């Protein structure tokens, strides 16, 4: 769907912009570096990227793209797993550099293919030769071409080598590479970029001083992935532009996976995409989940079946029940009237979203600065809370209002100003009045301030008047004055403050109604969190356990349907063996196990066989047992033990 593409584009824009920011400085620096090559230091950028390793790939790809467009055509991306030794590293490096040269202009194609065929000597000197030849060639190219190339890259562009995962490189390789390249830095302008996942201290722990003194390291901190996530949520969920919305539980699941497990924005986006797909796949009415204009058109072309579907929606049923009886009949029977109503409802929903977002932001402005953050620090937490239920009924909301009533004036004024900005920038038409109201509050505050100043002046004049009375009187009157002044001031200011808070409260009550109270919310909200959880957080052990313990779950064979507890002999052998092994201790005696197995298997087949024959285990059963046990060993549940003969060790325990 087009929405997905939109999503991806937005993410990319995000990423690139944030890279630009960190690298605009960096670019300047490279120019500087090329001029000051006097010292033998290799300019190095240490990019601290955070532990979300899965995101790094994308970051590096866009980084190298940006570099390629702006600075230099010569970029090599190195990964630790490709470079176990210095030899592999050089090979990889040369391969990448020479290939990217071919990319730049394909004239020299045959030349280089030939070279690479007879296994070039992978050494720095050949690299330098190559570099010289390349730069020389750009010199003597036609002037037209030279102009184009120099407009993008200056003469003798640096070679950028990116180490994707600094932590996993072996120390020896890195040290050798740095020592080697530092000796040739004059002929071969090299810039290193280290991708660091943990902390920059790793450089010092990986490289000894003699090596790190060859580097000229500058640190670049990328945005933490948490901030990244909040921007993405901000852009994707808290806008009215995308019709698709996430329900509270689903959002909660996604955010939990992010915070608890991997910090990976990539995975978050993937989960989000999965939600979209799942929603469009499972909800037949999701065709109405598109931009408002399209949706209206589509409503008109709804078939009878689809209308019935709508009538079956719980939220719509509630709506119908609240209507008058004649309207109810019309809604339930006439398709055309239904369509009209649906259009109106959809519009309502759209307006609701627009209002919702701006009021939410406004409330966030208020709550985010309160001590202890009763409603959460991030806007996403507030969003979740609002989606979950009527936010004004929660205790947290109550306490935050309490706290808001104790704010001092300057904070309050700045908050109000922020709110005004939010409302002005939002597209909702209903906010003109709100803006006016808020502005009115602001002017009132202003007036209040003026009034204070005036009163201060008058009070001081009063004081002077009273100076002539005796000391005791003076004290008394002063005290009285003070008290009265304070109480007056507080009451006036407080009244206004109460008013403001009350107004915000009314806004919240009006606009932040949870989405599932709205009619037709099923169309745009995806709310089945259990599906998502199943898909996103795999639990291999649990799956295996259910498969072996309760084969019916997967096999769907009626004969296997058991009441648990007892061990059925119709189950596959491995299940029987598994269940028996669950009852054992750390070391399992194979003979006992076999006996138990044969009793279970024979229990039904020959219920009244005599004891003498069961003493001698059937060969077939023996073979089946051995096979099942070796299957368990393959699955990693048991392993042969050397402590006791004829015993195997159990490797897994319940619970994990």
């Amino acid at each position, binding site marked *: 769907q087009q929405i997905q593409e939109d999503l991806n584009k937005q993410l990319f824009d995000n990423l690139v912009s944030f890279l630009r920011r960190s690298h605009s400085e960096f670019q300047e*620096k490279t120019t*500087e*570096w090329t001029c000051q090559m006097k*010292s033998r*230091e290799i*300019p*190095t950028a*240490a990019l601290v990227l*955070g*532990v979300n*390793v899965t995101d790094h790939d994308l970051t590096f790809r866009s980084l190298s793209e940006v570099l390629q467009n702006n600075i230099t055509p010569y970029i090599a991306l190195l990964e630790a797993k490709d470079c176990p030794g*210095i*030899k592999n590293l050089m090979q990889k490096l040369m391969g990448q550099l020479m290939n990217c040269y071919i990319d730049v202009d394909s004239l020299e194609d045959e030349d280089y293919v030939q070279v690479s065929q007879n296994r070039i*000597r*992978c*050494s*720095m*000197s050949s690299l330098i030769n190559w570099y010289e030849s390349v730069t020389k060639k750009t010199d003597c190219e036609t002037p037209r071409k030279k102009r184009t190339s120099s407009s993008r890259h200056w003469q003798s562009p640096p070679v950028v080598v990116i180490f994707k*995962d600094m*932590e*996993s490189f072996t120390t020896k390789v890195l040290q*050798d590479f740095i*020592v*080697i390249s530092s*000796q040739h830095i004059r002929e071969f302008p090299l810039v290193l970029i280290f991708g660091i*996942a*943990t*902390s*920059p201290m*790793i*450089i*010092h722990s990986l490289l000894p*001083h*003699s090596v*790190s*003194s060859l*580097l*000229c*390291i*500058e*640190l670049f*901190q990328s945005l*933490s*992935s948490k901030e990244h996530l909040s921007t993405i949520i901000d852009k994707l969920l808290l806008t009215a532009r995308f019709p698709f919305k996430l329900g509270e539980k689903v959002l909660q699941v996604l955010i939990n996976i*992010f*915070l*608890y*497990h*991997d*910090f990976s924005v990539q995975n978050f986006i993937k989960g989000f995409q999965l939600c979209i797909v799942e929603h469009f796949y499972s909800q037949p009415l999701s065709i109405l989940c598109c931009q408002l204009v399209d949706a209206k058109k589509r409503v008109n072309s709804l078939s009878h079946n689809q209308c019935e579907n709508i009538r079956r929606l719980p939220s719509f049923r509630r709506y119908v029940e609240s209507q008058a009886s004649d309207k109810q009949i019309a809604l339930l029977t006439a398709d055309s009237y239904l369509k009209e109503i649906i259009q109106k409802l959809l519009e309502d929903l759209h307006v609701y979203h627009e209002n919702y977002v701006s009021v939410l932001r406004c409330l966030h402005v208020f709550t985010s600065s309160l001590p202890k953050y009763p409603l959460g620090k991030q806007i996403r937490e507030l969003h979740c809370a609002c989606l979950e239920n009527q936010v004004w009924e929660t205790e947290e909301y109550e306490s935050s209002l309490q706290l808001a009533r104790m704010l001092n004036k300057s904070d309050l004024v700045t908050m109000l100003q922020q709110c005004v900005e939010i409302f002005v920038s939002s597209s909702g038409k209903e906010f003109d009045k709100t803006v006016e109201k808020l502005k009115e509050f602001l002017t009132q505050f202003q007036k209040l301030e003026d009034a204070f100043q005036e009163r201060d002046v008058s009070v001081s004049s009063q004081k002077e008047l009273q100076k002539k009375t005796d000391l005791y009187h003076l004290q008394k009157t002063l005290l009285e004055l003070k008290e009265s002044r304070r109480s007056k001031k507080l009451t006036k200011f407080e009244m206004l403050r109460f008013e403001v808070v009350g107004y915000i409260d009314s806004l919240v009550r009006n606009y932040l109604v949870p989405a599932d109270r709205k009619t037709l919310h099923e169309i745009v909200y995806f709310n089945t969190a259990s599906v998502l959880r199943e898909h996103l*957080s*795999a*639990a*291999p052990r*649990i799956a295996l356990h259910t498969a072996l313990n309760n084969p019916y779950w997967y096999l769907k064979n009626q004969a296997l349907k058991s009441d648990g507890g007892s061990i059925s002999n119709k189950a596959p052998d491995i299940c029987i063996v598994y269940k028996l092994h669950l009852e054992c201790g750390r070391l399992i005696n194979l003979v006992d196990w076999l006996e138990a197995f044969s009793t279970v298997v024979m229990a039904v087949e020959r219920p009244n066989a005599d004891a003498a024959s069961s003493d001698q285990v059937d060969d077939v059963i023996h073979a089946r047992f051995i096979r099942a046990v070796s299957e368990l060993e393959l699955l990693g549940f048991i*392993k042969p033990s050397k402590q006791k003969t004829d015993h195997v060790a159990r*490797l897994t*325990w319940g*619970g*994990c």
Partner: protein
Amino acid sequence: MPNLEHPAYPAATLLHLESLVPCRESQVSMLLSIFGERQQLSFPSIFIYGHTSSGKTYVMQALLNTLQLPHVFVNCVEYFTSRLLLEEILIQLQSSSSETEQTYVPCDNFNDFVRLFKQAVVSQEFEDQTLYIVLDKAEQLREMEANVLPAFLRLQELTDRNVTVVLLSEIVWELFRPNTGCFEPFTLYFPDYSIGHLQKILSQNHPPEYSADFYAAYINILLGVFYMVCRDLKELQHLAALNFSKYCEPVVSGEANERDTRKLWKNIEPHLKKAMQTVYLREISSSQWERLQREDGEPGQLKGLSAHTHVELPYYSKFLLIAAYLASYNPVRTDKRFFLKHHGKIRKTNFMKKHEKTSNHLLGPKPFPLDRLLAILYSIVDNRVAPTANIFSQITSLVTLQLLTMVGHNDQLDGPRYKCTVSLDFIRAIAR
């Protein structure tokens, strides 16, 4: 001070050489007497050792270049396999004197090398003079094939040509000596430069716009600050270049003249101390330092590398790491006491835990099996944790981040064992 004297070379060249290599006169004269005249057979192999930046490489280069002796100079780190090394020697040999086109000669083993070397010597007409092969960072030779080092030592004998191999290294010859006997090279020791030497060498290349005395005074101050921590000549040169502009500032602005050493000293000293804490340790890079000097700002605003020690980890990763830490520093037998819920005396155990920890810290982390890690994880996390694939993938990602290391078996099924490699401070920061 002994002047360099040798009958074979003109006095002017020797004088020039002497000016190039200050404080190394005795070594150079020793080398010269070993080398003898051009056509004389020299010692087959010479082993020169000395601490980092005691001028080994520089002296050899200066010596061979000024006297215009035929030589090949190779760094063994750069040519990391014996094949690369040998080929590089041959290539340099071919290109050293003639303009003949370079041809690529594959040279896989030492046998080939000896053959090709003979050819090259003949073709380049070096037969009548000694050819020098200098192998820098020779300690790398030990990691190549076993025959490389002994063969280089006997190269004169093997090729039957007038050739001398010079090995430069930072470690003593005793650590080189292979088991299977070999030719003993002539060993020569380059002692460290003393503070006087450093002073002399550093003040030699003063910038032209200032007088030598002025620069010498500056070097004196610089050495006074840095000599305690750093005797590396290269590093000192680097620092001198970085900080000189700051030193000159009062002179440029006219506040002090070049003689006013005391004033200058007062100006520069705190600055140098700051440099010692930052630039020398590479906390901030030299280009940042230069910018800082220009803007004359406080270095406090520029945080060094080690300021960013905080690592953000996902919620469960933190717990995993803490569990791993507990598992590797607590003995197994105490697990039951610490993590079982139905244990009354929590106070006491806490106290004992601390006590044991300190003693265990001296022993370093111990490996622990995966099961134990997970068991501890389940007991320290408050709510229930589902054993999803995410948790397991987090363990491996912690391993790639080098916060945990895997110990022993490579077999995944066989119950992998891990070790926690992070420090107590790190864990404290996380646990907060």
